[in-house]
């Protein structure tokens, strides 16, 4: 079944002809429905603040890559509302399975900025999450993490814990078999899993209309008899409410939810990609920035409410840039990965072959190998 809001509003017609999409905060910054009891002003400010932080982080990362201080990087600018809104709807102990584009969600859920820098710097310790957190390493293959989020949720359910699991993925992932297997398993075992799809319209170069003959991704839920929700992914209120509802449904024992958040990545697939090759990049990116930006509309609302002004923004910018720089410093000053360390953690106990190879590597690394 589709879960529709009373406030459906046709929008983003170039992604799909189907207009059914939950929207709460319009592009102009107007509330289309009451959020009373769901989102208070403190949370609104927090949403804005987090989006600002992750956007700054994202831009910084792209620049670092260009300066050669980081490896290939996957930017998310434009998708902040989807990632921040969904992550804010989680409880701290919920399991998160992000992809390589979901660092914003990971940051909001508690991942430290310097770790994410380390990850993209190719450091072996870039995927460790803070103690007690359940933020999994960014998933690199497509859709494969979705089934894991079924398993963790299944275990939570069996253990009687009130813990949900969320899997992030993109529109391209919905073509993989694992997507369908995950939805089906979660439906059969009624696991508290949230399948959170950011449909940004493109799987690298392939537009969604070429990816699938389905008009929407949310409608796939019907095949597995689980709820499918389609939201404006640039409307952080809609995203937050949809994910919060899904978590609650899951914890009540009613099973999984598929959420399709319609959004757009302003930039390239990764810093190794050139979007001008496959789309009218300048026009599209400008249009989304000008008309549909996830931050601008919230800023407008906050300003109308009198809880945002430019002075506050400047103050935030200063603090956040400082915070980001501190983390960057920490990442760049982090001890260089010791090649010998790459042999650790392959097994709980190191087998003989790896131990010997570690020694072999150490002797080369320390240059104490003498050629016979």
């Amino acid at each position, binding site marked *: 079944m589709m879960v529709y809001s009373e406030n459906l509003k046709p929008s983003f017609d170039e992604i799909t002809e189907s207009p059914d999409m939950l929207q709460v905060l319009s592009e102009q910054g107007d509330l289309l429905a009451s959020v009373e009891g769901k989102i208070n002003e403190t949370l609104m400010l927090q949403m804005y603040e987090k989006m600002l932080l992750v956007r700054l982080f994202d831009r910084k990362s792209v620049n670092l890559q260009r300066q050669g201080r980081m*490896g290939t990087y996957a930017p998310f600018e434009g998708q902040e509302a989807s990632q921040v809104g969904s992550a804010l709807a989680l409880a701290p102990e919920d399991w998160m399975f992000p992809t390589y584009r979901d660092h914003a969600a990971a940051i909001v859920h508690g991942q430290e900025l310097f770790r994410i820098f380390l990850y993209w710097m190719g450091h072996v310790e870039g995927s460790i999450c803070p103690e007690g957190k359940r933020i999994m390493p960014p998933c*690199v*293959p497509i859709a494969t993490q979705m089934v894991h989020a079924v398993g963790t949720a299944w275990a939570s359910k069996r253990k009687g814990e009130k813990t949900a699991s969320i899997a992030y993925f993109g529109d391209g992932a919905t073509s*993989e*078999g694992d997507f369908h297997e995950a939805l089906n398993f979660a439906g059969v075992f009624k696991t508290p899993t949230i399948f959170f799809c950011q449909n940004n319209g493109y799987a*690298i170069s392939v537009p969604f209309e070429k990816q699938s003959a389905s008009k929407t991704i949310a409608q796939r839920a019907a095949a597995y008899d689980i709820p499918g929700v389609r939201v404006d992914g640039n409307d952080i209120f809609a995203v937050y409410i949809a994910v919060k509802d899904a978590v609650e449904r899951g914890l009540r024992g009613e099973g999984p939810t598929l959420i399709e958040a319609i959004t757009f990545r302003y930039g390239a697939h990764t810093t190794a990609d050139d979007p001008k090759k496959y789309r009218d990049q300048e026009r599209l990116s400008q249009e989304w920035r000008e008309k549909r930006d996830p931050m601008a509309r919230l800023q407008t609302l906050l300003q109308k409410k009198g809880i945002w002004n430019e002075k506050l923004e400047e103050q935030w910018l200063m603090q956040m840039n400082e915070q980001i720089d501190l983390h960057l410093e920490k990442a760049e000053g982090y001890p260089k990965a010791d090649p010998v360390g*790459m042999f650790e953690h392959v097994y709980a106990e190191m087998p003989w072959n790896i131990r010997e*190879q570690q020694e072999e590597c150490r002797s*080369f690394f320390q240059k104490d190998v003498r050629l016979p």
Partner: protein
Amino acid sequence: MSRKLTMIQAITEAMDQKLAQDPRVMLLGEDIGINGGVFRATEGLMEKYGADRVVDTPLAEAGIIGSAIGLAMNGMIPVVEIQFLAFIYPGFEQIVSHAARMRYRTRGQFEVPMVIRTPYGAGIRGPELHSESVESYFAHTPGLRVVAPSNPYDAKGLLIAAMEDRDPVLFLEPTRLYRAFKEEVPEEMYRVPIGKAKVVSEGEDVTIFAWGAMLREALQAAKRIEQEHGWKCEVVDLRTLYPLDRDTIISSVKKTGRAIVVHEAHRTAGLGAEIVSLINDEALVYLKAPVKRVTGFDIPVPQFSVEDAYLPTVERVQHGIMETISF
């Protein structure tokens, strides 16, 4: 006529010429159409041959490889691109259980003439799972051919041969060499036979077996050993990893009496072990020293900040050679 091409240009040209020559040839893959492939191997081909012959598929490797099997059985010659070798696994079942077995199961009634091209190997500062070298999984699969060129000339000739082969071919393209250097490549179509290794430089004292990106390490180590110690290495580029060119391997070992195998894949159950076995079977009495393996380590290919320590270096190859010589 020939001109200098990079490996990626040579690969593009091979596909371009086969698309022009044989209407059965189709290319399938993710982002290979308007985007020209993530490494630009299919640049311009969709514009030239149309979107129904150079096909941007949905993002689903099992779907791509599985439907390519059907296309191949029904008269097409599909050439599949998988973006990186480590992304092939959703299609692994299709390759192992179907592409490689269809001829066998139907006692030759049906065949699957298809090519799966994919970049492989480390050394490009790639993100996780963009640098694997898991050729053994496939060389362990009866019914498949596995090919890995090390230079533009062989890449073109082997790819054309692969597209004309009646069996499924996994065509491994060393990512690090795509644009590393140019060399003379004939304009016309030619074939480099699958199953034939090549003696790249002759020597009497020790044989180095290598393929793909490791050829450069092998050649450089051979040069240094000769300069520094006067020993002459014979460097053999295997080019085809399944089936192995037994004759070339064995005759070289019979001549030199010493051998090392260099590969970036993990050591345990890597192809080096197979080559050592083959030498044991066929040339044991000619050996003056045990055959040495210089390989990637038995750990997941690590993040790129330490990938250079994972990969066999010239220094490690040199050390391996000297160990063999001074045994």
